C-alpha cells in the first residue's frame, strides 16, 4: 500500500498538500487542471521534489529519504524515456543494472522483456530507428525488468494516436495485472482514465483528494473538475 501521510511540498510559491492511501494492486488516475499539482505529486513520490513535511511509505516502509533510483517504483515520462545514444537492449538493461554490466542470463532477461512487449529482435537498434509506439514499448520492457511494485505514469503516450494509445494502455493493464503492479497515472484524458483505472485522485489547487471510483468521479464531477473537463 502507498501511503502519503500529511505530506507538504513547496515548489516556488506553489504548495501541495497530500494525505492518501492507495491499496496494493490498484490502478489510480490522477486528474486535475493544469497547474493544480498533478505533476508535483508525481515528482514528490518519484523523488524529484523533497517533501517539507510528512511521510511517504510503501507497505509501511518510508522512502522519502531515498534517492529516486532506490525507490520501490518505476516511472514513465511524457517523452524522453530513452537515451538516444544507447541501443534498445542497453536502454532496457538499465532496468536491471544501472551500470549495464549484464551477464548472459541478464541479457536473456532483456530479450525476454522485449519479446513480451512485442519487440523481439530489436536489441541492437537505436531509439531514433523506432516509431513512437515502439519507443513506449521499450520503456515498458524496462519497467518489467525493474520489478518494482509501483508504476508512475506522467501523461504517458501523449504523442501517440488514439488507437495506439488505447493499445499501449491495454499493454500497461496487462503488465500491471500480471506483475501485480500498483499504477498511478497522471492524465488529461477522461477516456484514458476510464480505460485503465478503477479509482481516481482529484487534485485541485494544491490539494490532493483521496481516491474515489473513476466512473463516479467523471460521471458526476465536482464543480472545479467540471470546468476543467468542459462539461
Amino acid at each position, binding site marked *: 500500500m502507498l501511503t502519503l501521510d500529511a505530506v507538504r511540498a513547496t515548489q516556488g510559491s506553489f504548495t501541495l498538500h497530500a494525505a492518501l492511501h492507495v491499496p496494493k494492486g490498484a490502478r489510480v488516475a490522477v486528474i486535475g487542471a493544469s497547474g493544480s499539482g498533478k505533476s508535483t505529486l508525481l515528482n514528490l513520490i*518519484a*523523488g*524529484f521534489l*523533497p517533501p517539507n513535511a510528512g511521510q511517504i511509505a510503501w507497505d509501511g516502509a518510508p522512502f522519502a529519504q531515498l*534517492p*529516486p*533510483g*532506490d525507490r520501490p517504483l*518505476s*516511472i514513465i*515520462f511524457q*517523452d*524522453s*524515456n530513452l*537515451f*538516444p*545514444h*544507447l541501443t534498445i537492449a*542497453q536502454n532496457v538493461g*538499465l*532496468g536491471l543494472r*544501472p*551500470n*549495464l554490466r549484464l551477464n548472459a542470463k541478464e541479457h536473456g532477461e532483456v530479450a525476454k522483456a522485449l519479446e513480451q512487449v512485442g519487440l523481439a529482435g530489436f536489441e541492437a537498434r*537505436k*531509439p*531514433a530507428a523506432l516509431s513512437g509506439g515502439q519507443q513506449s514499448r521499450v520503456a515498458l520492457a*524496462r519497467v518489467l525488468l*525493474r520489478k518494482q511494485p509501483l508504476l508512475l505514469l506522467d501523461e504517458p503516450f501523449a504523442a501517440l494516436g488514439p488507437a495506439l494509445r488505447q493499445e499501449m494502455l491495454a499493454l500497461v493493464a496487462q503488465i500491471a495485472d500480471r506483475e501485480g503492479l500498483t499504477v498511478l497515472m497522471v492524465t488529461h484524458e477522461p477516456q484514458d482514465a476510464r480505460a485503465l483505472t478503477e479509482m481516481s485522485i482529484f487534485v485541485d489547487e494544491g490539494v490532493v483528494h483521496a481516491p474515489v471510483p473513476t466512473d463516479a468521479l467523471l460521471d458526476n464531477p465536482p464543480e472545479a473538475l467540471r470546468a476543467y473537463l468542459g462539461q
Partner: protein
Amino acid sequence: MARRVQPVSTYLGAAVAALLVLLTFGTLGAVAWRAEGLSGLRTSDWLAVRFTVLQAFLSALISVLLAIPVARALARRSFWGRGALITILGAPFILPVIVAVLGLIAVFGRNGLFNTALVWAGLEPVSIFGLQGVLLAHVFFNLPLATRLLLQGWLAIPGERFRLASSLGFTSSDMLRHIELPLLRQVLPGAFMVIFLICTTSFAVALALGGGPRATTIELAIYQAFRFDFDLSKAALLALIQFGLCALAAVLSLWVTTPSGQGAGLGRTVPRHGGAVWLDAVILSLVSIFLLLPLLMIVSKGAGTILGLPESTYAAAWRSVWVAVASALLTVLLTVPLALAALNLRMRLVEGIGYLSIAASPLVIGTGLFIMVYRWADPVGLALPILILVNAAMSLPFALRAVSPALAEIEKDYGKLADALGLTGMARLRILILPRLRRPLGFGAGLAAALSMGDLGVIALFADPENQTLPLALYQLMNAYRLDEAFGAALLLLVLSLSLFWLFDRGGRANVDA
C-alpha cells in the same frame, strides 16, 4: 536537486579548481613573494590599461556581431564541403602570432592584395597599422571561435523547433525574435566574454599592428617589468589588474546570460530552411575570403620549404605533436570533473575558476612555476611536463565553454530519467554523460591540441634545448634570418594543428546518434 551531487566527481572537480587557482593566483603569489619592495604604477601603465580594455571590448564586440550571420548561415545551409569549411575557418585561432601577422600583412598591408585591388579600382589605399589593424587581427583570430560557439548553440536548438516555426509560417524576423534572439541571449555573452578575455592578454599582435607604443597592452607592460626592469612587484601588480578586469568582464557577462530554454529533441536532423540563400552565400564567401586569404599567403610562402626543413625542425614538430595530444587528453580529464562539480554545486564560482587561465599572464605563470619548482627540482628537466600542464590549463576555458552548456542540457533532458533508473556515480558518467558529451569533448580536445601546438611563451624562462617545440624552432629560424624556412615551419605547424583538431573533433562526431 541536492541528490544529484555525486561526491567523487565533486571532490575531483574541487581538486581541479584548486590546481587552477594554484596555476593562476599561486604563480602570481609566488612572483609577488619574490618581489623586493613595492612598485607603483606610472601614467604609461594606466594608458596601457585603458588601451587594453578598449581594444578587447571592440575586438570582442565586432567578433561576436560578425559571427551571428556566419553561424546562422552555417546552421541553416547544408552544402558540399561544409564540414571542411568549418574546420578550416578555425585555423586562424591556432596560428602563431607572428605568422598570422605576416599573413595578414600580405593581404592587408601596404603592398598587399587588398590595397593593390583598391588602387587598381582607383581608390585610396588604407593602412592596416593602428587600432584598425589590432581589431582586424583580433577579429581574424577570434571570429572563428565566436562562430563555433554560436554554431553550437544553433545546432542545440531541436529540429522540431524549426519545423514548428516553418509550419507557423515564420518569416526571418519572426524566427529571429522567437528562436534566435533567445538563443543569442544565452550564447552571446559567454562568447563575448571569452574573446574579451583572450584579447586582454594580447601583446605582440597589438604592438605589431598597432603602429606604435599607443597600442601598449597590460601584457606588454608585464613583459617589460620582467625582461627589462626585472620588477617582480610591478609585474604582479599589473597581472592582478589584468585579473580584476577579466573578473569584471566575467561577472558582467554571466549576469547578462539567460539560462537555456531549449528542450530536448530526439535529434533526428531536420533540414533548416528560411532566409535568403543568396545572402547566406555572400556572407559565407566574404568570411571565407577574409579568413582564408591570409592562410593561403602562408601556404604559398611555406610550400617551397616545408619538405626541406632542417631535421631538428621535424623532430621539434614530432615533439610538439605528442605534447599537444597529451595536453588535449589532460584538458578533457580536467574539464569533465570541473564542469560536473560546477553543475552539481550550482556554483558559478567553480565555473568561473575554469576561466581564470585566460586572464592569466603566461609570463607570470611561467615565472611563478619556476619559483615554485626551483626549490625542489630542476625546472628545465620538467619543461615538457610543465608545458603540457600549462597548455591544458590554458585550453580548459574553451573546452569548458563547449562542455558546460552541453552538460546542463544533458542533466535537464535526461537527468530525471537517469535518477529514476538509479544511474549514479561512475555509471552515470560512463553510460550517460561521456557518450553524450562526445561532441563538445572532441571539439574541446581538438582545440586544446591545436592551441598547444601553437603555444609559446610560458617556458621562455627555462626552455630545454634538447626538447624544443615547433613554435620555438620557428622563432629560431626567424631569428637566424631564415624567413623562407620559417614560413615552411609555419605551414607545417598550421597543417599539424589543423590535422590534430580535425582528428579530435571528428572523433567526437563520428557514429553519434542524436
